């Protein structure tokens, strides 16, 4: 009886809090009629925003994947002095408000920021330009790959790598043929989380982008700008695009965590 009540409560809670709202995006967007919807999401501003979002996502994902793997290898395999501090720094972007991130970049790279004069002198625009959006996205997605890869590396141990080296493999070769294939699910999961967060980043980007339509608007800031303009069709159209991407990401997460687990199972029955 208790079990049944608990189950019902949990399902009801998830329906009201999560599935209900998700359903609303789709129903609201499709209510507008597909023609109008298509027009709204293919305006120049919307397409430009989509392109910019994808650009920032791709760069952030590539940068953080390479950095994340290198960083995880360093933390697990070399255990440098001060790794507790390094760990804490890596976690910071999880805990810091996106608005604070945006402000931080503004105060570092903005005209009145630490490097403002230098950047202006060099003719480089960061804030209210694409580089600022990319840096903000890199910042907020920095921890994901590291955090997914570290436990996998720890569980893997370094015996296989040592075996490869006794068989004549250089450290570079060992990385490509032993380490990377062994951590691939962890990396993939981290990448998916990075993509999800990068696609949806709003606060930090809102601060540093200046939200100039057709120039520095990303999908999320485009939605907000259209919302202020009472353009419901565009709002829900763009929201639909982002939500669909989110669901794709979610599907990828499910598939990956299943693969990672089945891989895990086979490693366990030694």
């Amino acid at each position, binding site marked *: 009886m208790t079990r049944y009540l608990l*189950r019902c409560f949990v399902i009801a809670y998830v329906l009201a809090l999560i599935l209900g709202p998700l359903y609303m995006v789709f129903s609201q967007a499709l209510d507008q009629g597909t023609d109008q919807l298509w027009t709204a999401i293919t305006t120049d501003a919307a397409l430009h925003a989509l392109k910019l979002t994808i650009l920032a996502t791709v760069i952030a994902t590539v940068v953080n994947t390479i950095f994340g793997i290198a960083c995880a290898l360093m933390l697990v395999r070399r255990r440098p002095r*001060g790794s507790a501090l390094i760990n804490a720094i890596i976690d910071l972007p999880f*805990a810091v*408000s996106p*608005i604070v991130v945006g402000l931080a970049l503004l105060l570092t790279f903005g005209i009145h920021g630490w490097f403002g004069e230098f950047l202006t002198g060099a003719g480089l625009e960061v804030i209210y330009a694409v580089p600022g959006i990319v840096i903000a996205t*890199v*910042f907020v997605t920095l921890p994901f790959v590291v955090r997914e890869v570290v436990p996998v590396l720890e569980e893997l141990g370094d015996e296989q790598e040592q075996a490869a080296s006794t068989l004549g493999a250089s450290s570079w070769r060992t990385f490509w043929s032993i380490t990377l294939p062994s951590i691939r699910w962890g990396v993939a999961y981290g990448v998916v989380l990075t993509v999800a967060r990068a696609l949806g980043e709003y606060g930090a980007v809102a601060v540093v982008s200046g939200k100039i339509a057709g120039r520095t608007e990303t999908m*999320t800031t485009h939605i907000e700008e259209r919302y202020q303009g009472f353009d419901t069709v565009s709002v829900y159209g763009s929201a639909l695009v982002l939500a669909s991407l989110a669901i794709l990401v979610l599907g990828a*997460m499910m598939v990956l965590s299943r693969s990672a687990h089945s891989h895990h199972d086979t490693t366990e029955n030694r």
Partner: protein
Amino acid sequence: MRPRRRTTSGDALSTGIITAILGCVVLLPLSAVVWSATKDGTDSFTRALSNPQAIDALKFTLGAAAIVALVSAVTGTAVAWVLVRDRFRGRALLDAVIDIPFALPTIVAGLTLLALYGPKSPVGINIAFTQASVVAALLFVTFPFVVRAVQPVLIELDREMEEAASSLGASPSTILRRIILPNLLPAILTGTGLAFAKAIGEFGSVVLISGNVPFDTEVASVYIFGLIESDDASGAAAVSTVLLAISVVVLAGIDVLRRRSTR
């Protein structure tokens, strides 16, 4: 204990590079915030923080985050329990749905909550522009933290412990209180801490549904955003520094917990 591997100069170099990147990307910008908040002395810092609107926004944010963290702790544990220990059709779907708030952009989350629980609510609940709407938005975005922290621990939890307790005459409720909850506690606290940290900084999901009414529904991040828009960078930095400090304390607390539970 495995011994630390000997470091060669190549190791030291790459370690140095990685640490330097981390410092440049994460620490440098954040220290610019603290620097900007304190560069004109403590007076301007305290002035920025003694603004009644700032105090109210901070108080409301902390209060709402605390409520949300507590509710999340209870519901998250319940959801994790149902996912691990209950068997019914659709459980896999439920498991997949948990991560939606992680995957869905926060601005879209806010929009959808507004559509469902706003003025045009199809279910007749309108909480838009109230403090309750902020709590609802924060509950949504922080929902996965406790579930995903507790779930793996619950899966690994040794069933023999419970069987041993019941063989010793413990009732189900005693087993829950004395055996299960103490073992889950570090994970629950970790998840709750993460949810709290997320909640105090949340912006995207709150900004549309809350209406941002000063002294009522305005949260700290929205207040900071307003200051940035009106070019009060040092004021924004002062309030940001408070948020940063809370984040750091929460992270440190979680780290202590993590170490204690792995010991």
